[in-house]
C-alpha cells in the first residue's frame, strides 16, 4: 500500500517543519508545504495530496477559502483543519466549506497521526470542540426557513461526541453499531456542507441576475 501523501499549510515555518517531520517519522509522505492560502491552492492542484493539513489564520486569503477551493477542485483530496482553539467561526466556516474534520494545534502527535489516517480513509474527525460548534450551528439556524435540521438521534449522538465520548462508548450507550454512530456523525456534517453549497449557488445566481 502506498504511503498517504500529505501537504502541510501553515504560515509559521517552525510549526510547519515540525509537523512535517513528525508525519514523516510515522511513515507519511509529506509531498509539499505551503505558507499561505494562495500557494496552498496552487500547489495542491499540482501535487494532488491525499490529505491537506490546513491552518486557518493565513493572512489575506484565509484557510477557509482555500479549503473551499481545494475540496471543490479536488474531490479526492481531504482537508483536515489543524488550527488554534478558539477560532470558532473560522473552524465552522471551514467545515461548512468542505473540511473533513478539525484538530486543535495542542493535540498530541499520536492524535494527529490517527486523525490524518482516518481523514485519508474518508472518515470525519470530530473532536468534542467541533461537535459543540456544529450543534450550536444547527440550533442557531433552527428557526431559519430552509435550514437543515438534525434528527433526534443525530442530536443525541452529537451531544455525546461533544461531551467527549468515543464512538465506541456512544455505540455502547445507545445500543447502536459503531458504524451507525459514525454514519450519524458524518450525516450531520454532510447536511451542513450541502446546505452551504446550495446557499453559495443561490447567492451566486442572485448576484448574477442583478
Amino acid at each position, binding site marked *: 500500500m502506498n504511503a498517504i501523501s500529505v501537504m502541510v499549510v501553515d*504560515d*509559521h*515555518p*517552525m*510549526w510547519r517543519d*515540525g509537523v512535517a517531520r*513528525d508525519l514523516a517519522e510515522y511513515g507519511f509522505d509529506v509531498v509539499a508545504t505551503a505558507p499561505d492560502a494562495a500557494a496552498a491552492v496552487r500547489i495542491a492542484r499540482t501535487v494532488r495530496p491525499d490529505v491537506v493539513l490546513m491552518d486557518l*489564520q493565513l*493572512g*489575506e486569503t*484565509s484557510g*477557509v477559502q482555500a479549503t473551499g477551493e481545494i475540496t471543490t477542485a479536488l474531490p479526492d483530496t481531504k482537508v483536515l483543519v489543524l488550527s*488554534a*482553539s*478558539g*477560532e*470558532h*467561526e*473560522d*473552524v*465552522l*466556516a471551514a467545515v461548512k466549506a468542505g473540511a473533513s474534520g478539525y484538530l486543535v*494545534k*495542542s493535540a498530541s*502527535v499520536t492524535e494527529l497521526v490517527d486523525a490524518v489516517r482516518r481523514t485519508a480513509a474518508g472518515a470525519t474527525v470530530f*473532536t*468534542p*470542540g467541533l*461537535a*459543540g*460548534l456544529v*450543534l*450550536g*450551528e444547527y*440550533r*442557531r439556524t*433552527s428557526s431559519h426557513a430552509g435550514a437543515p435540521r438534525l434528527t433526534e438521534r443525530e442530536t443525541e449522538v452529537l*451531544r455525546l461526541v*461533544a*461531551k*467527549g465520548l468515543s464512538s465506541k462508548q456512544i455505540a455502547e450507550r445507545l445500543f447502536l453499531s459503531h458504524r451507525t454512530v459514525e454514519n450519524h456523525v458524518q450525516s450531520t456534517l454532510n447536511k451542513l456542507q450541502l446546505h452551504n453549497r446550495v446557499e453559495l449557488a443561490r447567492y451566486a445566481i442572485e448576484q448574477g441576475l442583478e
Partner: protein
Amino acid sequence: MSATSRRRTPAAGRGPSALAAVRGHIARSRPSETAISGRIARSASSDTAISGRDARGGGATAEVTTSLWRGAVALRVVMLVFAAVVTADQHDRYARPWLGWAVLAGMAAWTVVVLVSYTRDAGRRRSVVVADVLVTVALMACSGPALGAAQLAAGTPLVTTLWASASVVAAGVATGQAGGVLAGVAVAVTNFLVRDRVDTDLVRDTVLLVCAGFIVGLCADTARRTERRLRRALRAEATIAERERLARAIHDGVLQVLAQVRRRGGELAPLAAEHEVALRALIISGVGGSPTPDEAGLADLRAGVQGLATTTVHVSVPATPVPLPGPMAAALTSVVREALSNVDRHAGPDAQAWVLVEDLGGEIVLTVRDDGPGIPDGRLTTAAEQGRLGVAGSIRGRVAELGGTASLRTAPGDGTEWEVRVPR
C-alpha cells in the same frame, strides 16, 4: 470572521533564530502601544473639560461643539455691523444721539471681549456667559433713554437690535437647552420693560429669542452627548486593538516556541503543554469576547467558561456568542469551575473532563463530564443525610437560585456527568 482577528507578521519567527525574531516583533510593536495609550490620555483630558461644562475642543471628538462656538462668535460680529448700520441710519431721530453712540461703542467693546473669550477653551466659562447676558440686558436698558419715548412708541429698533440675540445663542451653546431658554426669556423681558408695552412685534421677538435659545441649546446638548459616546467608543476600540496586538504577539512568539517544546518531547514537554493551553485560553477569553459585561450588561458565557480549559479540561462551545446578564454568566461560570474542581479532587490525576455549552434560545444547558471512577451508589445520599452537602449541594443551590435544575449522572467506573439547565 473579522479582519482584525487575523494575524499577519511575515517576519516573526522566520529568521535563523526564532527567538530573536520574536523579540524583534515585540520591540516593533511598542510604538503603537504608546500611540494608543497616548490617545486614551488625550480623550480622558478632554472628557474632564466637557464635564466641567467648559466645552473645550478636546481633539477631534469635540469638533461639533467647537464649530457651535465659532458660529456664535461670527454671529456676534455680523450683528454688530448690522446694529452699526441701523444706528447710523436712525441716530438723528434719537432723543439722545450721544447715548446711542455710547451704547454702540459699549457693544463693540463687549464684542471684542467675547471674541477673545469664546475663541479660547479657557474663556468658554459659565461666568463669562452670565456676564454676556447681563451686559446685553444693561445695553438694551440704556437704549431706552437714547431713543426717547416718542421713538420707542414709534417702533424704532433699539440700538442693540438683533445684536442682543447673540448672547442668547452663546448661552445655548455653553449651557444647553435650559440655559438657552433662560437667556432668551431674560432678553425678551428686558425688551418689554424698555418699551413698556405689549404688541405683536414684541411677542414675535420673544418667540424668536426663546426658540433660538432652545434650538441652539438642543444642538449643543446633542453634540456633547454624541461626543461623549464617540470618546467612549474610541477608548473601547483602543482597548480591543491593544488586546489583539498582545494576542498576536503571544501567538506568533511564545506559543510557537511552547508548541515546539511540547512536540519535541522530553522533560519540559508536559509543562510546556500546560502553559500552551493556559495561554491559548487566556487569549480567547481576552479577545474573543469579554467575560465582563458590556454596556447593556450582557456578558458572553463562552468567554468565562473557555478560560477554564486546561490540558485535561476540554471546552466545547457554539461559534456565536452566548449573551447572558453579567451576574448570570458569572454564576454559571462558577458552577462549572466548582464541578471541575470536584473532578480534580475525586477523579484522579489522569482524568479528563469535558465541558459543553449549549444555547437552546430559551434555555442554557451546561454539561460537565469526567471519565474518572465515578461515585459509588448512595454515597451522595449518605453525605446529604450526614449534613455534609459539599459540592453537590452547592452546585444545586447556585443553579436553583437561577431558577434552573442540576442533575448528576454517575455510576462506578463510568465517571460523573453534571447537566445544568437554566432558563434565560
